[in-house]
């Protein structure tokens, strides 16, 4: 059942979009940028006289050229001084360097075009319109650099990176050599950090990013499930850690849904939102069992019990023996639904389906606790005996001993 919004909700949504778009900031950035909006119709269609048009252009120029604050000086090529708003196009046969007063350097590859949209004392705002730029940004405590690449923004403090924009396919490629940058805009609702050694490809038109980690490239998790099982603690810990080169990566060769990348980066709420936007039910049909476990974990860790159950159930149908999906369903029933009998049934199912599963100790401990909380003390004591026999030093040992006293 879909929820149809009202016009008031459309207004709220539009306000969020316009804030995200930063129109005012862009308008301000273009003040001092001597580039009036291109004429949007042929001259012979205009209703203005030439004189009126010139007067309007003059007033726009006056407005746009209002003075800016103190700013970094920069030169183009062999030392030609330039100012904010300068459009720069590298020749077709050679690179063109931009050198800034603080030592930062951008090398535009042959055929690349870019614009230095604004400058201030902390850095500059560049717009890469087409082609490739290799940047070496000098780190200073207060430096603030930004490169707009299509719909994406790359925020830089100090780093070396290589960025390109293919205007035809609308794909951005970003390769970090040193430091870290934050990429936002486009389909990203939160900035994505890209670190040294990582390579990001962002597809503006189909809401997809690929993040690969240098030499430690990881391929998409493959079925069967037992090889992919992760202890519960590892999944929870990822919520608190920044994506490292070796952990927040997906294959650079395969097409990866955005929610998978966000889930891998520990951005569970964003991952769930991205899956909703892509069509949650459709994703449940389309995704692999391993990916569905990641989606279900993201939903569970962001508090959406219903979506977590939906994805775990879908994963169960795709993974041999159900994988760890039953265990996940048990966690949802236990932690979020408070339905301890149901939780116990799921943990039992997991233990039955996965005789060598990596989560058997956790599942047995949870099973014992679920029966205890459900008031089924005889079942709880029976499991406690098994637990102590198999895991005498396990984390639930104290509970098991207490039950047996």
């Amino acid at each position, binding site marked *: 059942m879909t929820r149809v919004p009202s016009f008031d909700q459309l207004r709220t949504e539009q306000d969020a979009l316009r804030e*995200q*778009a930063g129109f005012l900031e862009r*308008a301000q950035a273009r003040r001092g940028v001597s580039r009036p909006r291109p004429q949007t119709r042929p001259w012979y269609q205009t209703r203005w006289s030439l004189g009126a048009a010139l007067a*309007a252009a003059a007033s726009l120029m006056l407005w746009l050229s209002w003075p800016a604050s*103190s700013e970094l000086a920069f030169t183009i090529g062999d030392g030609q001084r330039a100012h904010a708003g300068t459009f720069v196009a590298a020749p077709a046969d050679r690179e063109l360097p931009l050198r800034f007063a603080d030592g930062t350097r951008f090398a535009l590859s042959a055929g690349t075009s870019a614009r230095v949209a604004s400058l201030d004392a902390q850095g500059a705002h560049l717009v890469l319109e087409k082609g490739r730029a290799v940047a070496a940004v000098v780190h200073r405590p207060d430096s603030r650099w930004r490169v707009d690449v299509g719909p994406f923004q790359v925020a830089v403090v100090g780093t070396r990176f290589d960025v390109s924009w293919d205007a035809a396919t609308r794909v951005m490629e970003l390769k970090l050599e040193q430091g870290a940058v934050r990429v936002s805009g486009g389909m990203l609702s939160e900035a994505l950090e890209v670190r040294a050694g990582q390579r990001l490809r962002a597809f503006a038109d189909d809401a997809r990013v690929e993040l690969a980690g240098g030499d430690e490239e990881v391929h998409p998790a493959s079925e069967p499930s037992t090889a992919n099982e992760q202890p519960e603690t590892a999944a929870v810990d990822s919520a608190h850690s920044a994506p490292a080169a070796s952990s927040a990566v997906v294959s650079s060769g395969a097409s990866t849904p955005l929610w998978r990348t966000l889930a891998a980066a520990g951005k569970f709420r964003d991952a769930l939102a*991205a899956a909703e936007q892509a069509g949650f039910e459709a994703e449940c049909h389309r995704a692999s069992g391993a990916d569905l476990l990641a989606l279900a974990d993201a939903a569970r860790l962001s508090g959406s019990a219903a979506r977590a159950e939906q994805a775990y159930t879908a994963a169960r149908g795709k993974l041999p023996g159900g994988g760890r999906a039953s265990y996940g369903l048990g966690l949802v029933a236990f932690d979020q639904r408070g339905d301890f009998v149901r939780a116990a049934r799921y943990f039992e199912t997991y233990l039955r389906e996965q005789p060598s599963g990596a989560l058997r100790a956790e599942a047995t401990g949870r099973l014992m606790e679920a029966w205890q909380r459900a008031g089924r003390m005889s079942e709880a004591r029976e499991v406690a005996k098994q637990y102590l026999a198999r895991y005498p030093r396990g984390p639930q040992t104290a509970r098991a001993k207490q039950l047996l006293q």
Partner: protein
Amino acid sequence: MVDEDSVRSHSPQPTASPPDGVVRPFPGGSDATLVVALRGRRADAADQLFERYGDYVERLIVRVLGIDAEVPDLINEVFARAFERVDQLQDATALKGWLGSIAIFTARTFLRDRRSRRRFLGFFAPEELPEVPVRPAPVECSQALSRTYAVLGTLTADERIAFALRFIDGMSLGEIAEVMGVSVGTVKRRLSHGQKRFVREAERDPLLKELIQNSERWGEP
């Protein structure tokens, strides 16, 4: 004696000292004071005008056009026109409404230009494509928003403006009349025509049909 041209302060940090150390902050306060400063072509007055009403102008343009890559340039066009014509403003206390009317005039001109060009070229030029893709949001909401603006594209510029300001922005009929520079009766007539066209298009779209039913102001004018 300080030369007027050397007096600068810069939005959004009006208190920051410029490098030459010459500071004479804009005296803030009423719109009437601001208009006087604008007429005197004071540099800091331009910044103040932008800071005070930039969000308002942006909001009006976005309501009429939707999320569009041309919005930043149109914002600057609005302020450039205001800066140029500030001497023609008769009631200095009506600065906001006057700016709103310039914003609506600028948006209307842009819409008509775009329509002419589409008729002429028959397709969307690349620079017209929105730069801002949809963020993760409730699917129905983002779909309804984009479909609403698709239907608004079938209305005349005046109908579209009245419709967007009334139903999406939630402005009163009087406010719309002020920024459109017409009578309330004219606004009602444009809204009525716009609604009829919108309903005709929405009949084919269940989402928009329900959207209309969910909206309290629908059918009021």
